[in-house]
């Protein structure tokens, strides 16, 4: 167990080290301010950190990402599971879903700012609204592919709604949740960037756009990598252990 953890830490370090190496070599080869070296990005990060900006903006963005993520996952997966199990509802709601799925983020964000004002709730709502249809679509596929044999066990043994959800349905949906979570956080973060661009006065998106106008690639990358760093922590300290826990039954077969 412990050896396994050390080993996977080693693999992480190896993988990141390799990445830095490739980057460094590429930056040296190009030698241009559009591809700054890892060191230059690190320095920008330190500058922003010292100024207090990094922490402030990253924090603001992370809070928005978290809030929108929770809202989108809760609502999206409830709807998705429902549609996957109720073909009639699905056929009626499907066109709406495709519509919502394909409305540009920009349009949703602008309209929600205009209708609900430039406030945090509108921002988070707009992001969630952008993400919800993706969650719905993913979980709906999961619900469609549920194994009816287990549902029959639940019927015969008269499982109540929650028991059925928890012990029969959700475990089968785990891979779909995992997919929706990982690509979901990423998507939400990307939309939060646009939301911050269009109507917030703080956040990583706000900063990235400012530095884009100044064409300061190093600082843009500094903010990006700071977020990526947080995501790596989330992945290794939260998602992977959760995955492992949910999949321990698969792993039991050695």
């Amino acid at each position, binding site marked *: 167990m412990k050896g396994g953890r050390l080993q996977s830490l080693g693999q992480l370090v190896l993988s990141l080290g390799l990445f830095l190496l490739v980057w460094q070599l590429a930056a040296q080869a190009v030698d241009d301010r559009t591809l700054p070296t890892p060191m230059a990005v690190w320095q920008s990060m330190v500058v922003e950190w010292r100024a207090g900006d990094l922490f402030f903006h990253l924090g603001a963005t992370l809070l928005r990402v978290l809030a929108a993520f929770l809202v989108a996952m809760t609502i999206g997966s409830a709807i998705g599971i429902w549609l996957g199990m109720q073909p009639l509802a699905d056929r009626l709601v499907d066109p709406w879903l495709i519509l919502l799925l394909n409305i540009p983020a920009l349009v949703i964000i602008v309209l929600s700012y205009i209708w609900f004002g430039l406030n945090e709730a509108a921002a988070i709502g707009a992001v969630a609204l952008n993400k919800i249809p993706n969650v719905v679509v993913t979980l709906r596929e999961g619900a469609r592919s549920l194994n009816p*044999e*287990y549902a*029959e*066990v639940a*019927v*015969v*043994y*008269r*499982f109540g709604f929650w*028991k059925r959800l928890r*012990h*029969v349905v959700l*475990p089968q949906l785990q891979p779909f949740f995992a997919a929706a979570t990982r690509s979901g956080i990423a998507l939400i973060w990307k939309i939060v960037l646009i939301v911050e661009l269009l109507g917030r006065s703080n956040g990583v998106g706000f900063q990235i756009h400012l530095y884009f106008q100044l064409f300061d690639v190093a600082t843009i990358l500094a903010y990006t990598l700071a977020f990526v760093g947080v995501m790596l922590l989330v992945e290794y300290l939260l998602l992977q252990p959760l995955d492992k826990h*949910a999949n*321990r*039954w*698969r792993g*039991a*077969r050695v």
Partner: protein
Amino acid sequence: MPIDGVVPVSESAMESDLMTEQALRVCVQGRRFALAGGDTLHAVGALDFSLPANSFTCIVGPSGCGKTTTLRMILGLDKQYDGSIHLPGNGPIAAVFQEPRLLPWRTVEQNIRLVLPESRQNDSLDELLVNLGLEDLRGFYPNQLSLGLARRVALARAFVLRPQLLVLDEPFVSLDEPTAVRLRTLLLDLWQLRPTTILMVTHNAEEAASLADRILVFSKRPAQILRSIDIDTPRQQRDRPVIDSIVSRLGD
């Protein structure tokens, strides 16, 4: 709450149930499956039988004749039939499917406990698990079990519920004969301990002859009742010759 689609019994029917002590009444015109291309497959023909309360009935019949389909209709898993199935009372029902159907992401113990109501979550499973030879496997996941072990867990899941109606689809296959004998005895013990109506499908004529009060012999597809054989000899007295004679009555 009765299972959806199973017509609840009216007051008067209830009374007559009490009189005849019926635990289950099946009266269906048949079940056809729609096939691609518009054809249908006639799986079950007209069936009309009832099970007395606390009786032990076996169904035997050729492979693919419609036995499992019949059980599924009784369990409320298949509602696309014409006719009616009455399940008086609303005590728990338990089923052992033809495959173990354990939840792969739950351990042996969790799979068993899951069917218990809240009020019984603290019951000890020790005795049951020992009887089924599962005492060391509480924490195993189903993919760590042999098929015979998994079947035993499925039996444990059904037994633990102390059901009013117990439906078994070939429960004792994939077991060596000594284990099968032990489990059959266990089933009879449990049955005698508390009133349970048992409906069991088996391909093993001797098993049916040694366990059942009544044997329903199904025809080949579409399933119909060819013969209904009542066995009056008490189980203790069913020795080889008795069983052989019952078996010979099934076959012709």
